[in-house]
């Protein structure tokens, strides 16, 4: 989230799309209700009428997978009727920037496309530069090559009638949503967009979010109280996990994971540290070398020296992208010997679970570390297989639950809150930290022994030279405070001795004199102590519910990021009632201002993380185009009404996935997946609890009255749902909350499914991910769980 949970209450319009917040983020919805109590309006766009819809002022249906079309019609409405925050758009976005005249867009394809590789060469998407190397601008927005004109032309194709035919949302509903949301274009009116997996889990997932960003920039809503782009993270600490680099393509602090082409530190810096000649741009990522080198110092200690690139060579370099889906494809080809699954349950949660189960069979060993027996840990006794034929050795390690260990949890609003151990875990259970710590120390010992014995050992240095000290002398357990202190970072004196804690990342160096596990967390545990454990309940001077003394927020306790965009060039708040920061002429008041307190609003551009310092309406960095364009899901009932390409041209479907693509002739209904409040993710934590099993005891799907009638299915009947990848048993909930969509003139039905069930635990059921395809977004590789094709029959 650019903002945070409490801040939602400041919104005049809350727009929830791709999320059923009332169901899956019940606490977030408390603040949505507060916004409504203060006179705010709630728009909800969803394929079903959900718990969120039941409390909305305005509900509009949408066919799964058509968010770009839906949002583009609102963007078009705003542009055509000039309902934009003009001052903000001209000053703080790239609307006025001139693009290379060679940039073209034709029939869904942007210039630079290589149809063989299905990738883009992005040269023609660049800005025109003046002789100082600064992007050329036309602040009158009239130049035909300026972003504003290009975007107007791009989005005018998305009129309400055409978008209605794509999305299945009636024209009247589209208009109402557009009218209500664009009311926030006024400088002192603010709207927020809340989204979750309904937006991201598509082959156009990142471009879906781009449409939200574009709309928010046009409305002038970024950086404002009650504004922003707010991703509702699906687990209590999934924010923390991405912050610390638990995805395949990043390392801690959102630095790029090195690839094999990044042969040394110099090359890495050349490839990933952006440059600008624009004096108005802070270009914050220019500091990346400090963050990377400090991280290497934290990881490799005295073994990280200038002479050895601070141990850069010790980092693994990926020779190809290995997102979740590719990892399991590799596994199914026998390329992995073992796997550790901690707090994850892929045979329920991954796409195409039949493929995943066949893949884990190829492992020599597998460790599942969880608080319960998970469905994954018993994959070898699933229906239809003979356990005797499976050679995988499975270890199930008992772990403590979240209240049985100490540590920090980062919520969606980036608040990192320290929590304490309430009680000891049962039996021999240990914490994740202790497992990793013990495992690493033993592996290190094995390496050291082999090296000492003169044995030939492959790449021992990254292990033997690691700076791994998380236990107090004589202790057998790791101390989470020691980890947190290393994440915050510390000074290193000339003799290589560890000094004081870093105050924050502003004083970090790239010469090896500072160490820091994760730059964005620098300041969380400094010489003043554990800032994450703070529980001060005093609000800040702007009284907008920031509570800056409660816990700690990255970066540098900033509660609303891009907050420089909340004021005009003079430093006056666009919305004086709910001001975030203001410039007094010499100092900033309110929230911790973006980019340091020294620079005034006239001196620097507000969006400090882009090289231009402004927000990108036209985004030249993505893999599938600078503007969002509608494409159909991999499996779809409809033809693409916007251009002649069905699937996103940036998506590559793997050979394995290609073999199992279903057609609308065999699988005529849209399948979509989601959660219910009673069960947690893949269900291993909740399907053992009788009180929750009482509420939702079985796998179920939701279908409309019309589909039920056509198929002779009554409420509560058992059904079989099939896709090109498998078939599952389910109960059917027949409900008028689900209605067919009128798409391109014909009615299309949807089968919505919960994904919490599997074969383990007290209450069992089939996993709907048996049906989902293993294909994903070309930028993030998130699988397309939200729109695919199924058939349904009465069992």
């Amino acid at each position, binding site marked *: 989230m650019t903002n945070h949970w409490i801040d939602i209450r400041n919104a005049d319009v809350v727009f929830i799309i791709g999320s059923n917040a009332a169901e899956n983020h019940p*606490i977030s*919805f408390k603040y949505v209700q507060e916004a409504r109590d203060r006179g705010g309006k709630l728009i909800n766009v969803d394929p079903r009428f959900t*718990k969120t819809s*039941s409390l909305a002022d305005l509900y509009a249906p949408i066919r799964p997978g058509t968010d770009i079309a839906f949002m583009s019609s609102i963007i078009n409405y705003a542009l055509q009727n000039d309902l934009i925050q003009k001052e903000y758009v001209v000053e703080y976005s790239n609307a006025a920037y001139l693009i290379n005249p060679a940039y073209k867009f034709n029939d869904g394809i942007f210039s630079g496309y290589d149809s063989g590789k299905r990738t883009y060469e992005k040269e023609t998407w660049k800005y025109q530069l003046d002789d100082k190397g600064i992007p050329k601008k036309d602040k009158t927005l009239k130049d035909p090559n300026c972003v504003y004109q290009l975007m107007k032309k791009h989005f005018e194709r998305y009129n309400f009638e055409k978008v209605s035919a794509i999305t299945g949302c009636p024209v009247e509903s589209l208009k109402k949503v557009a009218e209500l949301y664009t009311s926030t274009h006024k400088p002192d009116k603010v709207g927020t967009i809340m989204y979750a997996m309904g937006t991201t889990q598509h082959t156009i997932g990142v471009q879906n979010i781009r449409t939200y960003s574009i709309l928010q920039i046009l409305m002038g809503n970024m950086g404002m109280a009650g504004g922003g782009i707010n991703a509702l993270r699906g687990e209590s600490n999934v924010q923390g996990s991405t912050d610390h680099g638990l995805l395949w393509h990043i390392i801690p602090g959102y630095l790029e994971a090195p690839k094999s082409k990044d042969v040394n530190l110099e090359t890495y810096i050349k490839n990933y540290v952006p440059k600008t000649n624009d004096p108005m741009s802070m270009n914050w990522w220019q500091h990346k070398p400090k963050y990377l080198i400090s991280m290497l110092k934290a990881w490799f200690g005295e073994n990280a020296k200038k002479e050895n690139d601070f141990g850069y060579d010790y980092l693994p370099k990926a020779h190809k992208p290995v997102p979740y889906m590719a990892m399991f494809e590799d596994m199914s080809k026998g390329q992995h010997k073992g796997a550790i699954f901690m707090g994850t349950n892929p045979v329920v949660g991954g796409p195409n679970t039949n493929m995943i189960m066949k893949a884990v069979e190829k492992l020599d060993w597998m460790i599942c570390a969880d608080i319960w027996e998970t469905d994954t840990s018993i994959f070898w006794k699933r229906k239809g297989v003979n356990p005797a034929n499976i050679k995988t050795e499975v270890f199930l390690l008992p772990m403590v639950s979240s209240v049985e260990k100490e540590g920090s949890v980062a919520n969606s609003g980036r608040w990192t809150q320290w929590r304490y151990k309430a009680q000891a875990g049962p039996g021999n259970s240990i914490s994740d930290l202790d497992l990793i710590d013990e495992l690493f120390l033993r592996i290190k010992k094995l390496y050291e022994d082999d090296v000492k014995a003169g044995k030939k050992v492959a790449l021992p240095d990254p292990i033997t030279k690691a700076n791994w000290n998380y236990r107090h002398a004589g202790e057998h357990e790791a101390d989470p405070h020691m980890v947190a202190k290393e994440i915050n970072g510390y000074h290193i004196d000339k003799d290589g001795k560890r000094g004081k804690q870093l105050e924050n990342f502003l004083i970090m160096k790239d010469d090896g004199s500072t160490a820091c596990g994760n730059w964005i967390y620098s300041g969380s545990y400094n010489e003043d102590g554990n800032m994450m454990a703070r529980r001060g309940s005093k609000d800040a001077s702007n009284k907008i519910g920031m509570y800056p003394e409660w816990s700690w927020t990255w970066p540098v306790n900033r509660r609303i990021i891009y907050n420089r965009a909340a004021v005009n060039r003079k430093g006056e708040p666009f919305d004086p009632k709910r001001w975030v920061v203001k410039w007094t002429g010499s100092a900033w008041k309110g929230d911790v201002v973006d980019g340091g307190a020294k620079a005034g609003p006239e001196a620097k551009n507000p969006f400090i993380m882009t090289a231009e310092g402004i927000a990108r309406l036209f985004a030249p960095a993505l893999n599938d185009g600078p503007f969002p364009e509608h494409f159909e899901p991999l499996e779809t009932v409809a033809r693409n009404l916007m251009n002649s390409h069905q699937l996103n041209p940036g998506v590559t479907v793997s050979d394995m996935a290609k073999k199992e693509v279903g057609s609308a002739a065999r699988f005529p209904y849209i399948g979509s997946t989601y959660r219910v409040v009673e069960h947690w993710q893949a269900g291993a934590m909740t399907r053992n*609890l009788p009180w929750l*099993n009482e*509420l939702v005891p079985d796998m179920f799907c939701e279908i409309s009255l019309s589909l039920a009638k056509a198929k002779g299915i009554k409420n*509560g009947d058992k059904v079989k749902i099939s896709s090109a990848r498998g078939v599952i048993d389910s109960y059917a909930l027949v409900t008028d909350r689900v209605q067919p969509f009128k798409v391109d003139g014909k009615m299309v039905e949807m089968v919505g499914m919960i994904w919490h069930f599997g074969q383990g635990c007290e209450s069992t059921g089939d996993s709907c991910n048996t049906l989902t395809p293993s294909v994903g977004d070309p930028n993030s590789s998130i699988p397309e769980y939200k729109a695919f094709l199924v058939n349904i029959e009465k069992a």
Partner: protein
Amino acid sequence: MAEKAFLVDTSKCQGCRGCQVACKQWNGLPGEKTEFFEGPEYTNPAKLSAKTWNHVIFFPIDRSNADRPIWTIMHKKCFHCSEANCLNVCPEKAIYRLDDWVVVDQDKCIGCGACVNACVYKVPELSEINHVNDAGQKILKRDKSHKCNACTLNEREIPACVSVCPSDAMRFGYRQDIIKHAQARVKVLKAEGFPNANIYGLDQFKGLGVLTVLRDKAEKYDLPLNPAVVDVVKTEATKDVYALLSSFTMGIPMLKRAAYKVSKSISKDA
């Protein structure tokens, strides 16, 4: 008039069912074995019972106003009537008023089922099992009547169901404050396009201990506007006969139940 009251604001309920789970957790009640959904939509179990003292009812969506479909999700438990049928019919005075709440005294309950039959809201139920909770408390006793006791048995400041509500759909407080708040909510709802918004429970049984804010007419949610009050003359007659007969039962519950049945037929209270 009662001093305190519960508020159930269906126009704010998110349907998380935290109330249903919190009640079971606080009291140590067992989960019920259910299949699929036993009531409409996500409702589970279908009704209140000795094991389930509150539950959340998901009514089918009402699309009669296409611009403003209403999907009502309603927390339901004992309404704690001011003039409670169950209390009035109980032959053993096992049901009594504790502060503002209608409570069953398990030691006195003979399991006659009078309260079960008398409650128009179908709240109390005789337990089929004995159940001891984790705290060692015999929370369910076989053949005795059980229902919500407003957390007066396992006492706490704010009842468990209210304490976990994330969305302000439930409140617990002084009745006058609750009424004032409910009236303000109804005004807001009318302005939002729900002309039938109302408060249920101001008048029924001389005022219910649970006031429910609804976006549509109460009858749509099985909440009668003029619920049948038990005939006091008849119930008193039954109780008089029972008082006489029960002196011959030697305190044996089975005989007491039989005595109650006989009393009922003698006094023609049916």
